[in-house]
């Protein structure tokens, strides 16, 4: 009974305000109610846009932010909302914000952001592929491949192939206690080991732990002592922040 009453009240309530347009100092934000049904939301959005079309008129282009709160929107639903908003000529949807993500996405992000540690020997013919950073406790033997979307850290000897930033991250590094690789690649830059006849004594490339990275604006892979890795990571983190802010 109470429910029915509520429904009646809701349907008769004229100013339900499922869609709120708020002006902040960063620009306009469209707040979408996250409790009503999607159809209701769309209906109200349509009405609002019809009314506000005149308000916006042919004014200068405005970028608006959309905030869907705790509503999960499928990609076609998102598109529908963006299309509705952009019907008003000057409006351009910049950011689409939602407080919820799917379980799959959350798991993926967790993997990508995290460090996976693996204790084994990556032998000839084996491929160890990790989302995010990887810490290998063991060796990578000649013919074995270790690859990660993030950084590769090896607490052991790298004698095979290591690929860091395989999805394009140029800031990724390959760090190994003993660096005697066949090949290293970071993003699309590749380092080939010196040919075997050049290093007859079969010693590693460096006397101490090093990391491989792409030096500034360079497509070539360079090496630096592992103790300076902290500085490098700080620097790249700062760069990332800057690029986000601008």
């Amino acid at each position, binding site marked *: 009974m109470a429910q029915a009453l509520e429904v009646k009240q809701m349907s008769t309530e004229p100013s339900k305000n499922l869609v709120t347009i708020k002006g902040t100092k960063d620009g306009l934000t469209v707040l979408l109610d996250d409790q009503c049904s999607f159809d209701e939301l769309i209906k109200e959005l349509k009405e609002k846009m019809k009314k506000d079309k005149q308000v916006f008129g042919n004014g200068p282009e405005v970028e608006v932010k959309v905030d869907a709160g705790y509503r999960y929107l499928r990609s076609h639903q998102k598109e529908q909302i963006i299309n509705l908003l952009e019907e008003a000529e000057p409006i351009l949807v910049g950011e689409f914000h939602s407080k919820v993500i799917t379980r799959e996405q959350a798991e993926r992000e967790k993997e990508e952001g995290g460090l996976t540690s693996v204790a084994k020997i990556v032998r000839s*013919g084996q491929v160890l592929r990790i989302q995010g950073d990887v810490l290998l406790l063991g060796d990578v033997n000649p013919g074995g491949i270790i690859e990660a979307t993030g950084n590769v850290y090896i607490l052991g000897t790298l004698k095979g192939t290591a690929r860091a930033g395989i999805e394009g991250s140029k800031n990724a590094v390959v760090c190994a206690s003993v660096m005697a690789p066949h090949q290293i690649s970071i993003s699309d830059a590749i380092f080939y080991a010196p040919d075997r006849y050049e290093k007859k004594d079969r010693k590693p490339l460096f006397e101490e732990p090093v990391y491989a990275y792409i030096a500034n604006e360079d497509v070539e892979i360079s090496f630096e002592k592992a103790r300076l890795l902290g500085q490098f990571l700080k620097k790249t983190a700062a760069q990332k922040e800057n690029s986000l802010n601008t």
Partner: protein
Amino acid sequence: MGEAIVITSGKGGVGKTTTSANIGTALALQEKKVCLVDTDIGLRNLDVVMGLDNRIIYDLVDAAEGRCRVQQALIRDKRFDCLHLLPAAQTSDKSAVNAEQMKQIISELKPDYDYVIIDCPAGIEQGYKNAVSGADQAIVVTTPDIAAVRDADRIVGLLEQEDMSPPRLVVNRVRRTQEEDLLDVDDVVATLAIDLLGIIVDDEEVLKASHKGEPIVMNPNSQASLGYRNIARRILGESVPLMAIDQKKSLFAKVKSMLGLKV
């Protein structure tokens, strides 16, 4: 109930068959009941190395397909009553047998013997899968050269996925003199990171013995023979120190080392 040990290497020509024949014979010398199984269908050699190639009537494929009983296909060794050989077929190829049939044959053999030694073909295809399917343990044979070690590493990786105890290593054809540019036993062990079961020095006598159809282990004066005998004793659980490789020193160097001078 015996144990089935597969002898494998990945690469061809490193001495799997020689190692199988000699480990088998060395275990027989210790009065163990041993059955050698050649799984290299189409390219059988174990019977030749053992000098039993003239006695084959039925083979592994006949046994697998039920044309004979497993016992009928076995050949008794001419030297030891406790050593038998199950030869591979020469007329078919690796696909003539599948892993299930192989498992069945090995499990039929195991109750009658202390050790079933399975000689694996080169490669990592069907023949390898068959040979490994019935085994409880594995011995990886390699020579100290870069290609053989690379393949052995691949095999160790594959064996680690099998339900068996970690494989053990035999380094075959170790040179007496160590050259700077070549791999030594320590390099091989460092790369593969598995237990070293033994080393066999490079010895021409091994080849000559194969020609005679008599495993080198029968000749007590050869260093290679001693290596195989030591491996057999280690398989039986004895703790035998790794033998020092005779460096074939010059007389002058020998005298010097006798006097305690640095060579």
